[in-house]
């Protein structure tokens, strides 16, 4: 799942390296609110889920780990 998330992020913003440890994607300016919309759309489609609108907050998209946690919360195994 982690590799798939990195792949989606890299397709979204190919200019950044999402494999680096310790980065906060939001604070580093790697993802803006429009990227988050595109990312959620992509995750919903790829995993057949619908991430709750209330969960679409920066904290849930600041790292690969936080995105994976969100997917697990939505029943992705």
């Amino acid at each position, binding site marked *: 799942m982690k590799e798939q998330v990195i792949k989606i992020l890299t397709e*979204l913003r190919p200019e950044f390296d999402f494999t680096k440890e310790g980065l906060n994607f939001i604070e580093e300016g790697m993802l*803006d*609110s*429009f*990227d988050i*919309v*595109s990312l*959620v*759309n*992509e995750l919903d489609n790829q995993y057949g889920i*619908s991430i*709750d*609108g*209330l969960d*679409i*907050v920066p904290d849930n998209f600041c790292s690969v780990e936080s995105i994976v946690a969100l997917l697990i919360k939505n029943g992705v195994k």
Partner: protein
Amino acid sequence: MDFVFKNKRISGILTILPRKAIKFEDEIENYSFSPAKCMKLKLAMGYKEHRIAEPGQTSVDFAIHGLQYLFDNGMLQKDEIDAILFVSQSPDYIMPPSSNIIQGHFGIKQDCLCLDINQGCAGFEIGLIQSFLLLDQPSINKVVLINAEVLSSRTSKRDRNSWPLAGDAAAITIVEKTNDNLTIYANVKTDGTNAFALNIPAGGFRMPSNAETAVMEQDEAGNWRCKDNLVMKGDDVFNFVQREVPPMIEHLYVQSGVDRNEVDWYMFHQPNKFMLHKLADKLGIPHEKMPANIVENFGNASGVTVPTCISYNLGDQLVNGKMRLCLAGFGVGLTWSSIMMEMGNMNFNKIIEF
């Protein structure tokens, strides 16, 4: 705040759209995004095409064009109009009221209540509720509700939060008494503490427009706009909608005693496709029952989107039959409102261009 109305109906909706259509692809260079990113956003948000008024076309012009069409085609008689409600955030003047200008233009009788209402995204629902309230008076049998916006002229083309979705339009809704034993359920909520989530800083008496308010400035996200332009704090608005709208609709089910599956169509305000799909998913409603094609094809004309949605998606189906609709508007104010009602056997329900 809940409302219940009896023996009222919508007998006609005429939506008036600008002829000028602008494709999203033709404006990509304004947004400083890569083409790939733009295409992803196009899919997610529903950026396709939007209708924009010609320079000089005002909200009153759209209303007059639509009313003239109704009079010319025998769809409405001047002497039966007891009230004109004009709901807009882009009136022709601060003074006088647009509704009075329209009454005067057509020489409509003086026994006519004219009222301008400053409301935005929930403007159709607020206008309907006000119309239903007026119709409780013995002297008022027919209300002409006009929703009209030309806010594109106050939206920066280099503001990617707002411009791709900006739209201009008007809708004329005829609301009247009926002997049909129909009950309409409605509710409204307000949160003025977040009033500036959507705002136009300059142009009122607090900050009159001048050369300084016309100076373009870049915000942290890279959008360019001046103080005369519309500002939308997109994240705040998104969170507000996802937080407040689902419980409002859940409350409407209880209030009306109508199950979600008994609703034929959910005609919601059209901020963007992504937001509407998230609302539908949260409420357990199939996307097909909550059209998102108005923002996609015509843009978001604030309070005009719901009547446009009804005209575009249902058209003659509401002339020849009846359906149960759930209407909802949410945004500027902040104001959010919803209505559960049966609609049908209408005299007209169509779109024209201006």
